[in-house]
C-alpha cells in the first residue's frame, strides 16, 4: 500500500547518516515501520537503567538532551538536534540505557525498530562503519561534533572495510561436548566445572543439539524435567551450523535471523559433518563493539613486554580506524590514553618484578611532555622522571642507585614496546631526573626563581608532568610546592609567556605559509613548532597562572580557561578547537607518511586543507596577542 508519510519520513532520514548510505527501497521499508513520537518539553524519553526500548530514535523536530544523573544532579552528556540519532548503542549491546534522555524542547522523534534496521544495516559497509564509530565513542552521533566546523573532512582515507564485513569472527575451538546419553546433571556439572554457558551434544562428532543456561532455567528449574533425564530431553535441536571462517557480519546475521545465540561451526556447514567450533553472541560482541576494552584487558594480563608491544601495534591500527571514522579527537585521545597509560603501568609492574628487592621507599613515576599532557597519539620519544620520598643523607646514594636501575629496566621495556629513547636523555634513568622530593623541589625553585634559556626549554617538558605509577602523595606534594613558589615569583609567568610567543604567526605578510628555510626539512612546514607549540605553551602558562591542577591536555586547559574567563571565552574555545584540529591533522599526516607528522610538505595539501590550516592560525594569532597584553611583553 502506498504510504505518503513513510515517503516523507524517508525523505527526511536520507539527509542524515547512516541512512544516507541506504538505497531508497531499504530506506522506504524502514520508514514504513517508523513510530512517530511526540514529546512535550522536559518529558522523559527514557531513563538510566530502563530496559532498552526495542527502537532507537532520530530527532525530527526539536532537541533532546542526554544526561547522566550524578549526585541527583543531571550532567548533560550531549544535546541531539534535528537529524541526530540516539539510543542505539544499548540496543546493539543489549544493555540497559546508560543515559537518560528528555525532550529539551517540544520534540517530534522517529523511533526506528532495531529488528528491522539491523539486518539492513549490516549489509551496508558504510552503515556498519557508522555503527562502529557510534560504539567506540559515547556521543550519540560522532559525525555531528567536529563535523560542525567541517574541518579537514576532505581528508578521506579509503574506508576500512576489513573492520566489519571481512573480519573473521573469533570462535572457540575447544568446545565442551557430551554424548546424547549423558544425564542432565552430568552435563551441568561439566559446564559449571569449565565455567561456560553452553554444552554441545554430539553423536559421532556431529552436533545434534545444544544446551545453554537458558534451558536449565526454562526446562529444569521449572520442574519440567528431572536432572536424571538424558540431555536429549532438554537440548535445542537441530543446531544452527555454518562452515569455517564466517565473517562477523555473516555470523551475526544468521543469529539474528534464527533468533539463536550460539552457532556451531562444522566441516561443511551442515549438522551432518564434524563439529569444529562454536560462536557465541558474546564472541560477536567482543569482535566489534569493545575493541579498546579487549585491548585494556590484554594489557592487564600481559606477562611479557613483547605482549605489550603487540597491543601497542594494535592501538596504532585502532587509531587509524578511528581517524578514518572521523571520530571526535577528544574521544580518540581518551581511548588511546587509557590504553597507553595502562601499557606504561604494566611495563613498570613488570620491571619492578625484575628487581631483586622491593623499592627502599615510596616513589612515583612521572610522564613528561606530550605523554604528560596525554596528547600522545603516534609513537614518540619517552620522557619520564622518578621522584622518590626523602631519605636520610647517608642512604641517598644507594636509594637513587636503586631507582636508576629500575628506570633502566623500565625505559628499556618502553623502548621494546615502541617508545624511542629520548635523544636529550630526559628519562628517569638519568640521575638528574631521578631525585628525591626535596631535591625536585629545589630544582623547580631554581627554574622558577632564576629563569635561564635552559629553563625555557625544560619548562615545556617539566611543567607538563602527570602521575603514572607509584605514590600519588609525592606528586601532589611536588605540585603544591611548585604552585606556591610560582605565587611568589609572578615574573616567571612573564618569562613563560614570552617563550610562548617566540615563534611568530605561521603566516607571512602575504598570508603565505612560513616554511623552513634550511636543513633537512627545507620548504616543509613545521606544524609542531609553528602551530602546536604556541598553543601548548600558551595553555600552560595561563593554566599555571590560574593554578589549574590535574588538567594537562591543551584542549582541556583551554576549555577550563574558557569557563574561568568569560570575557575571553571565544578565544579560548577557538584555541581548544584549533588545537584538536591541528593535532588530528598532524596525526593523519604521520600515519600517511609513517613518521611523526611534524613536517608537512605543502605541495601535498589540497587548497581546502591549506585554507583550513590558515583558519586555525587565526586562533594562534589571537592567543599570542592576549599573552602580549596580559604580561606586558611589548
Amino acid at each position, binding site marked *: *500500500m*502506498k*504510504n*505518503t*508519510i*513513510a515517503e*516523507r*519520513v524517508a525523505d527526511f532520514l536520507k539527509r542524515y547518516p547512516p541512512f544516507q548510505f541506504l538505497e531508497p527501497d531499504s530506506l522506504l521499508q524502514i*520508514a*514504513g*515501520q*517508523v*513510530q*512517530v*513520537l*511526540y*514529546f*512535550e518539553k522536559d518529558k522523559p524519553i527514557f531513563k538510566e537503567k530502563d530496559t532498552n526500548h526495542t527502537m532507537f530514535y532520530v530527532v525530527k*523536530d526539536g532537541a533532546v538532551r542526554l544526561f547522566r544523573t550524578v549526585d541527583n544532579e543531571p550532567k548533560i552528556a550531549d544535546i541531539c538536534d534535528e537529524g541526530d540519532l540516539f539510543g542505539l548503542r544499548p540496543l546493539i549491546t543489549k544493555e540497559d540505557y546508560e543515559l537518560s534522555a528528555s525532550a529539551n524542547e*517540544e520534540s*517530534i522523534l522517529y*523511533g526506528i525498530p532495531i529488528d528491522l534496521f539491523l539486518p539492513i544495516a549490516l549489509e551496508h559497509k558504510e552503515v556498519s562503519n557508522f555503527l562502529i564509530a557510534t560504539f567506540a565513542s559515547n556521543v550519540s552521533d560522532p559525525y555531528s561534533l567536529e563535523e560542525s566546523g567541517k574541518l579537514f573532512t576532505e581528508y578521506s582515507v579509503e574506508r576500512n572495510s576489513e573492520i566489519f564485513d571481512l573480519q573473521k569472527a573469533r570462535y572457540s575451538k575447544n568446545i565442551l561436548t557430551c554424548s546424547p546419553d549423558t544425564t542432565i546433571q552430568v552435563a551441568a556439572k561439566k559446564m559449571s566445572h569449565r565455567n561456560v554457558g553452553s554444552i554441545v551434544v554430539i553423536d559421532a562428532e556431529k552436533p545434534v543439539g545444544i544446551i545453554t543456561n537458558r534451558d536449565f532455567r526454562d526446562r529444569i528449574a521449572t520442574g519440567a524435567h528431572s536432572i536424571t533425564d538424558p540431555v536429549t530431553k532438554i537440548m535445542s535441536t537441530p543446531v544452527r551450523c555454518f562452515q569455517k571462517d564466517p565473517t562477523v557480519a555473516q555470523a551475526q546475521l544468521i543469529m539474528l535471523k534464527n533468533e539463536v545465540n550460539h552457532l556451531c561451526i562444522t566441516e561443511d556447514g551442515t549438522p551432518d559433518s564434524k563439529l569444529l567450533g562454536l560462536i557465541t553472541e558474546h564472541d560477536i560482541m567482543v569482535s566489534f563493539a569493545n575493541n579498546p576494552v579487549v585491548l585494556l584487558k590484554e594489557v592487564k594480563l600481559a606477562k611479557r613486554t613483547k605482549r605489550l608491544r603487540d597491543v601497542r601495534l594494535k592501538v596504532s591500527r585502532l587509531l587509524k580506524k578511528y581517524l578514518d571514522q572521523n571520530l571526535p579527537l577528544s574521544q580518540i585521545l581518551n581511548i588511546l590514553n587509557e590504553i597507553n597509560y595502562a601499557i606504561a603501568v604494566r611495563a613498570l609492574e613488570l620491571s619492578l618484578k625484575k628487581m631483586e628487592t622491593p623499592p627502599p621507599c615510596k616513589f612515583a613515576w612521572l610522564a613528561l611532555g606530550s605523554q604528560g599532557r596525554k596528547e600522545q597519539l603516534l609513537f614518540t620519544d619517552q620522557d619520564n622522571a622518578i621522584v622518590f620520598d626523602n631519605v636520610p643523607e647517608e642512604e641517598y646514594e644507594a636509594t637513587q642507585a636503586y631507582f636508576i636501575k629500575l628506570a633502566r629496566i623500565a625505559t628499556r621495556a618502553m623502548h621494546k614496546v615502541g617508545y624511542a629513547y629520548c635523544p636529550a636523555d630526559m628519562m628517569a634513568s638519568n640521575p638528574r631526573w631521578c631525585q628525591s622530593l626535596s631535591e625536585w623541589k629545589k630544582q623547580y625553585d631554581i627554574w622558577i626563581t632564576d629563569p635561564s634559556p635552559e629553563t625555557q626549554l625544560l619548562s615545556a617538558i617539566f611543567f607538563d608532568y602527570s602521575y603514572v605509577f607509584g605514590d600519588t602523595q609525592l606528586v601532589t606534594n611536588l605540585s603544591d610546592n611548585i604552585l606556591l613558589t610560582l605565587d611568589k615569583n609572578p615574573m616567571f609567568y612573564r618569562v613563560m609567556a614570552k617563550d610562548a610567543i617566540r615563534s611568530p604567526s605561521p603566516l607571512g605578510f602575504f598570508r603565505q605559509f612560513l616554511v623552513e628555510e634550511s636543513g633537512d626539512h627545507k620548504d616543509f612546514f613545521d606544524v609542531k613548532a609553528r602551530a602546536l607549540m604556541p598553543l601548548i605553551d600558551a595553555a600552560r602558562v595561563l593554566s599555571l597562572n590560574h593554578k589549574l591542577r590535574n588538567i594537562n591536555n591543551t584542549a582541556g586547559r583551554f576549555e577550563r580557561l574558557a569557563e574561568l574567563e568569560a570575557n575571553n571565552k571565544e578565544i579560548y574555545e577557538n584555541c581548544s578547537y584549533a588545537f584538536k584540529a591541528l593535532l588530528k591533522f598532524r596525526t593523519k599526516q604521520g600515519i600517511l607518511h609513517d613518521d611523526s607528522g611534524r613536517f608537512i610538505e605543502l605541495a601535498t595539501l589540497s587548497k581546502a586543507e591549506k585554507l583550513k590550516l590558515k583558519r586555525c592560525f587565526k586562533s594562534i594569532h589571537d592567543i599570542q596577542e592576549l599573552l602580549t597584553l596580559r604580561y606586558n611583553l611589548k
Partner: protein
Amino acid sequence: MYIPFFSKKQDPPEFYKAYAAQFSKTNTADFDTARFIIFDTETTGTNAREDRMLSIGALALTGNQINLASSFELYVKQDMFSEEAAAIHGILRENRKYKKVTEEEAVKAFLKFIGTDILVGHHVGFDVGIINYALKRLGAPKLKNKFTDTGVLYKRTVHLVNITNPDKVYTLDDLCEELNISRTDRHKAMGDAYITALAFLKILSRLKGNKKLKLKNILLN
C-alpha cells in the same frame, strides 16, 4: 430524515454486522491505552451528501506514538469529478501513479481498520458524513465509533481573553500556524491526517496541562 430508497429498515450487510458486533464490549480505555484513528478524506466537493470520497488517509495513535506500520491510505474510483476540487487535492480522474479501488472496497477496508477505535479528524463531522453517506449507499447504518475534532479541541485551548471572534472557525492551516507544524503534504488525505495527528498530540498536551483530563471529556458523541 426521509430518504426514498431506504425508507424501510433493511438488514445491514455482513461486513457492517461484523463491524458493529465489536462494539458490544464495554470500553474502559484511558488516554494511555486508547487507540485513536486520525483520518481525513479528500472529496469531490464540500457537500457531504452530494460529493464523493476520492481518498482516505488514516493513522493509528496510541499514547504519544504514531505507528506508521499501521496506517491506511486508499484512493477511490469515482464517476463524479470536480475540477475545482482537483485543483486543491491534485487527484486526477485518471492517475496511474496509484491504484484505485471501488468505494465499496474502500469503506469495507476502512471499517476493518478502525474497529472500535476513537476517530479524530479536523472538522471531523464532514469526513464522518462522507463515510456515512457511502455506508448508506451500501445499505448500511452509520459509523458507531466515538469521535472528536481537533478544530473544537483547539478552541478550548485558547484562553477566553484571547478570543476576539467567538465564532471563528479554525482551519487546519490555522492550526499549522499556531502549533508550528510543517505543512508538507497538505491536501492529501494522508498528509492532512498526519498533520491532524500532530495537532491532536500538541492540543492534548496543552489541554492536559496540570489538570486531570479524562478521555470522555474530549469526545463529542
